[in-house]
């Protein structure tokens, strides 16, 4: 396994349908060697299989949203702030609020499916220090979010010419 193999693996992982000739150009390896390298990687079971990454949401499997409520032991000197900072760093956590009432925190969490949300809560949120209790509410229908519905697109605007 050398640097070229690693590059080959990265490129295949990104798009396993790319042609041998194109791989040859991209990696600066002759096309014949590409074939033998791939064969060797398959034999060594480094390449396990070629599969597609499916956006199941787009395919009809809607994203799952859940409200998670947490009881939290506040920290001397910091109160709720440090633990809130930690929780807010998870990309699954869309919003995080300190609230009055039975629970301290209210999180809005998303996942591909219920299992993913459940796993996220049980593996990442619940075991954190200072979390005493969790309550998970799966959202049945989302009407409005922050004044608007999920819209816009990612990506940066660049000016067309710069030197």
């Amino acid at each position, binding site marked *: 396994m050398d640097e070229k193999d690693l*590059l080959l693996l*990265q*490129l295949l992982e990104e798009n396993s349908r790319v042609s041998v000739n*194109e791989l040859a*150009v*991209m*990696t*600066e390896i002759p096309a014949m060697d590409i074939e033998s390298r791939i064969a060797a990687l398959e034999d060594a079971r480094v390449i396990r299989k070629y599969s597609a990454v499916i956006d199941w949401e787009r395919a009809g499997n809607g994203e799952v949203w859940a409200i998670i409520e947490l009881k939290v032991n506040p920290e001397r000197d910091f109160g709720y702030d440090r633990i809130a900072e930690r929780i807010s760093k998870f990309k699954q956590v869309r919003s995080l609020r300190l609230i009055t009432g039975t629970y301290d925190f209210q999180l809005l969490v998303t996942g591909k499916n219920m299992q993913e949300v459940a796993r996220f809560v049980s593996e990442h949120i619940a075991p954190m220090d200072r979390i005493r209790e969790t309550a998970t509410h799966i959202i049945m229908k989302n009407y409005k979010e922050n004044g608007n519905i999920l819209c816009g697109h990612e990506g*940066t605007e*660049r*000016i*067309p*010419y*710069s*030197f």
Partner: protein
Amino acid sequence: MRNFISKSAEAIPPSGIRKFFDLALTMDDVISLGVGEPDFTTPWNVCEAGIYSIEQGTTSYTSNRGLQELRNSLSEYLKSHYGLHYDADREMIITSGVSEALDIAIRAVIDPGDEALVTEPIYVSYAPCVSLAGGVPVPVPCHEKDHFRLTPDALMEKVSKKSKVLILNFPNNPTGAVMKRDDLKAIADIVIDHDLLVISDEVYAELTYEGSHVAPATIDGLWERTITLNGFSKAYAMTGWRIGYLCAPEPVCDAALKIHQYVMLCAPVMGQIAANSAIRNGEAEKNKMVTEYRVRRNLFVHDLNRIGLPCHVPEGAFYAFPSVKPTGLSDFEFAEQLLKEERVAVVPGSVFGEAARDHLRCAYAVSRKDLKEAVIRIERFMSNLRK
């Protein structure tokens, strides 16, 4: 009313591609290969450090030289990556991008009438900065047959008694050319013989694909007569943060610092904090970006040659620099017609000096998907030309 505009400002030629710029802004679906910046966004850990600094209320001036922590990190980094030795306290200034570093470097050493030898093709700001300092820019052409490297012969032809400074920019914008150690040694002999100072803009150093970058200041006899400029924009996709740095022997650094303290005071503090995070934790993401640029370069340059735009393999930066000679069009004609007919933006070479005539600068800091589409459009444009 008098004409209040200074002669020196009036003498700066207007941007050569203003009309392209305006035209592109009116068009939809333009694929721009005309950019001089990465298409990646700044790695998140770097952004996070900048954001955190603002949250913490770190929003004030720093020392003129820049944050001590950043200078310490840079001093170590330059040593471990390039074998460059600069003292963090005495031989380094953090600047607002390499643009500022270049300006204060030139003003620190150029007196009216001094000649500055500037390799060509070259980034657009060097000659105007020299002129604004009262100096005289003298182009030294680099040729396609030499893969746009600076050769001793070309330099010897232009060096004179008035020459004081040689400005280098390798890896080069716009050609992607790289100078190897032997190339630099040959240049160093002339530099030393003629008692010149080198200003070396190495902002593309991290984007060196064959072998590793050789900093001119690591050549015997050059450290004491070199100002090394570098920054975070290209390697870490941080163009908007405006953080660069200038490294030089103490007397030169002190002179540049005097100018820096009055024109800039200091570089933005949140940018400096983000830059420190980039240098300490950004290596993996940077390497990923460099690998991706190299893959794109291979694809794009291969395609350019295939469709009839001869192009050497650029060994650094993220620009391909094909020739349009076979098409019979000038670089300006090609770039304008290509934009109008196929909505692909490229920069005509002439913008980068006479030696760049008949070439195009095409940035491949664009997704592979867009690069492929750009090639399809350029190929269609060229086949329409032949009709």
